């Protein structure tokens, strides 16, 4: 009989982001600026998942994110599972919520928009959270989430 093993080692303290579609893992890493984290980060890609077939997972030790930081994930991965771990136990589960404003996360696709021509942060109003319709605060161009490019 085969031994059941965790695919990724358990975390003592920190944040687990699970059920990330494997194609989106690097975008999540970029959005949360994990390249700047000095504690250990475990990245599992293409792991077996009953729910998704295969998935990716991030375990970030000793790092707890603000809701604002985590809600940025709604742009690329709205359905991930978030768990806060303390002493190997899940003490809190969170959901990603689409914020009302998206600042400095996505590009405006209007090349004549000031945000693409000036060193400044982009800013989108979220008009429709369900349909993912956004409007640029500057040029007023509307975009849908499936078509956006990250900065």
């Amino acid at each position: 009989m085969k031994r059941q093993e965790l695919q990724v080692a358990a975390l003592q303290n920190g944040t687990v982001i699970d059920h990330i579609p494997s194609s989106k893992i690097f975008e999540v890493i970029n959005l949360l600026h994990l390249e700047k984290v000095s504690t250990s980060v475990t990245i599992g890609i293409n792991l077996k998942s009953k729910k998704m077939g295969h998935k990716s997972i991030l375990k970030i030790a000793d790092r707890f994110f603000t809701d604002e930081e985590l809600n940025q994930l709604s742009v690329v991965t709205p359905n991930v599972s978030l768990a806060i771990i303390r002493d190997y136990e899940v003490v809190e589960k969170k959901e990603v919520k689409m914020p009302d404003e998206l600042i400095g996360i996505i590009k405006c696709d209007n090349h004549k928009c000031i945000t693409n021509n000036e060193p400044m942060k982009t800013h989108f109003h979220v008009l429709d959270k369900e349909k993912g319709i956004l409007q640029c605060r500057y040029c007023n161009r509307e975009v849908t989430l499936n078509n956006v490019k990250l900065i």
Partner: protein
Amino acid sequence: METRSLVTIARHSKEKLLYLIEMAQEFERHPNRKILDGKIVATLFFEPSTRTRLSFETAANRLGAKVIGFADPKVTSGTKGETLKDTIMMVSNYADIIVMRHYLEGAAQYASEISPVPIVNAGDGANQHPSQTMLDLYSIYKTQGTLENLNIYLVGDLKYGRTVHSIITAMRHFNPTFHFIAPDELAMPDYYKMYCKENNIKYFEHQDFDSHTIADADILYMTRVQRERFTDLEEYERVKDRYLLKEDMLFRARANMKILHPLPRVNEIEYSIDNTPYAYYFQQARNGLYARQALICDALGITLDDIKNDKTIIA
């Protein structure tokens, strides 16, 4: 930073629009004043627009302000790679208010967020041109005596025409009925038709343009059908003459009907129409002076009361 900048009038309330119209009326009564004596108005035109610039500069000069600025982006440091922010921060050291025209969309919004002095948007790319909308509203009000319940016909390039889109948004408070007359390729975008539906604005679409179509118009707003807007030049050749207004199309027109045009006109209004009582486009441009006087003063925090009690009027 909270300033009284004017980026768009799309979000102005009905009361605010009528307030600005009343202010423009005061300036039409007495256009020459010293109410801006001691003020400096900067006009920064990152894209040339002679008519708009002359109109703003005349508005400022007739109120006693001094004007600084540039008319041609070639002479500014923008071409050397200076950011918009740096230019705005530099000029705001010198001027009390900045009137700016820019080729990039959203430039005025951004400038208003960083500038310590108020910004007046004199056009930002294809986005907003609030002083044009204000002078259009003032012209409609002056010629019809009201903004309520009017039949407004928009003709020509309704796809790219920034002015016609702004008229729809600004008129939403006043129960208008719109008629859109345009070739297929330049038809009113779905976005604005949805906007009309959401705001209970009645509209009709036509492809024909003749004396019957326009018989019920109170306002006939003409725009230029530009060749460079067409992907299919054969289509352009087919439709280019279909949206020209000829004098013999006016014999069914209402007595109160006025023809508006943002200018410059090329050939879309027959020149003989200039001599009919329906022609209003030159007076419309003149109304721009009063509308811009109102917008500059409002941005500087000068109220309608200040203007009514103004002791600096030059007789």
